[in-house]
């Protein structure tokens, strides 16, 4: 079978109902190919979490997919009945959240939680499930899995809990792993280990990964492609390397310019911070959502409809005016008026 594992097209998610409905995600299209690792980067309120959760129809009750299609392995996720949806969530897609502690039941030992999931999702018998539990824990790099399997969630460190969550998410050899800020609550050294683990899952088992993060550094360390979201829109997408070298959209440029780096030690150079603040949920701005904070803002920005255009072989940007050309930060302003 070929074609993308996950294909989201023209997704629009509205919060609230009737006239109060506010669009939190607007016309978002994302594709994750088989065995591909895609990063979804954005700040708070960008709609990145809603977007990734919609892939398994995990949009909170107040929200609603108002338009667009979500396809998993070619199947229409929005049209699935309860049983199909359950099967997809149980077997084909794994989900890892930011806070591993609240996702684990505090009153059961780790092995029991995994075992129960194995039994209900794969129909395993107890002896097989026991063996599989140990194998899973071992596969996510938990040392001495027999011993740690007997631990309660609160006895594990943050990194260990996240490993357990990943073990749970990889039950049934899923085709896709969705990781929503999986390392945000962790220390940097632990973060590096978890990112290593995600990369290994992809390299060794061919699992496609959709990694959501506010930190471009995390995406840069792991992903092949990056999708940049801002104010509910995708503003730019392309290979991670080219996006870093030649960010096309002014927001991506500004975002990368404000990421602190080790290299700036001792220089006392002030970062060019993006002025203002990100738009709030459902804030309706005519034209480009980034225009009020953009240093290239012009009259025409307020009437464009942020569609992605091919701007280089692999990069697409929602800004029709600004283009990166040649070296990083060399900007040619031009294009269609």
């Amino acid at each position: 079978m070929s074609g993308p594992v996950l294909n989201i097209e023209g997704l629009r998610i509205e919060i609230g109902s009737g006239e109060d409905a506010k669009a939190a995600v607007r016309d978002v299209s994302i594709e994750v190919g088989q065995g591909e690792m895609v990063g979804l980067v954005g700040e708070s309120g960008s709609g990145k979490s809603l977007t990734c959760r919609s892939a398994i129809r995990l949009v909170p009750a107040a929200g609603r997919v108002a338009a667009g299609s979500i396809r998993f392995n070619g199947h229409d996720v929005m049209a699935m009945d309860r049983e199909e949806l359950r099967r997809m969530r149980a077997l084909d897609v794994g989900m890892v959240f930011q806070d591993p502690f609240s996702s684990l039941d505090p009153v059961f030992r780790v092995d029991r939680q995994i075992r129960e999931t194995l039994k209900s999702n794969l129909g395993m018998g107890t002896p097989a499930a026991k063996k599989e539990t140990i194998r899973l824990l071992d596969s996510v790099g938990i040392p001495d899995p027999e011993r740690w399997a007997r631990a309660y969630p609160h006895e594990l460190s943050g990194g260990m809990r996240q490993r357990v969550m990943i073990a749970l998410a990889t039950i049934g050899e899923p085709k896709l792993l969705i990781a929503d800020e999986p390392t945000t609550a962790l220390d940097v050294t632990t973060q590096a280990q978890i990112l290593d683990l995600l990369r290994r899952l992809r390299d060794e088992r061919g699992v496609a990964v959709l990694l959501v993060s506010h930190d471009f550094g995390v995406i840069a360390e792991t992903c092949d492609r990056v999708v940049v979201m801002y104010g509910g829109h995708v503003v730019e997408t392309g290979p991670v390397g080219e996006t870093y070298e030649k960010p096309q959209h002014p927001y991506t440029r500004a975002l990368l310019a404000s990421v602190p780096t080790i290299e700036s030690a001792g220089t006392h150079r002030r970062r060019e911070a993006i002025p203002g603040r990100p738009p709030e949920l459902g804030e309706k701005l005519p034209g480009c959502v980034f225009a009020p904070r953009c240093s290239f803002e012009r009259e025409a920005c307020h009437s464009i409809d942020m569609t992605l255009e091919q701007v280089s072989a692999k990069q697409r940007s929602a800004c029709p005016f600004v283009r990166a050309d040649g070296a990083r930060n060399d900007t040619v302003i031009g294009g269609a008026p």
Partner: protein
Amino acid sequence: MNAADPVLRVANLSKTYPMRRTVADRLRGKPREAHLAVDGVSFDLNEGEILGIAGQSGSGKTTVARCVTKLVAPDPGAVIKLQGRDVVRAHGEKLREMRRDIQMIFQDPYTSLNPRMTIGAAILEAGRVHRRPGSDRPEEFVGAQLERVGLPASSADRKPRELSGGQRQRVAIARSLAVQPVALIADEAVSALDVSVQAQLLNLFLDLRDELGLSILFISHQLAVLAEVADRMAIMNLGRIVEIGEARDVLSNPKDAYTRRLLAANPNPDPSKRGEVTA
């Protein structure tokens, strides 16, 4: 005070927390175990300097901040001097005066402001309690503090919940500035903010140092954040300072193995430098 003296001198600072014993342990007469959160830490914060303290969770960096402001009492033997005045033995009016002079900015801007007070009232209160000059003219006083942190004076009537995280953090800074301190402690003050807002706040801290001559103890788990602002930096691990020096030297030529590990784990936004992580 001598001009060359540091604003803040910390020497031999340790903090032990007794561990809880279970009832069974107590009955068995098991001795109380102690957890050494900070272990013999010494450093100086010079005038107009930004000193970064880096470390992971549990390294003791926040306990250092809490000892310096005497939110917790350090173990006997510690020396903490603010402009030559003894913080450890201060109490009552003296302690309140010293706390006024070294202000703390917290990580979570959502809980550091009283949700029931307008931001103007919070800023004015800080100035009035310490009878700061100008605080008898509320509007001008509050307006001046707000404008110094880059907020419009007109925002004085707003409640914290109407503000974004970055704006709240600015208000918390304005409230601290209202008491006219000589030093700030920023404890993970930008960690909860979006990257684009984080950069604004880092610039604000640099401005405050340059314009008001404030000395800042800047605590963060992100090395890259400290690299942006710190003149000197200290790396903490398991309660000890393992390395301290000029920020550039520490980060470009780390002497300690732990510092090197932290540096290696730092996620680099440049994907071409990927894979140098050896965790």
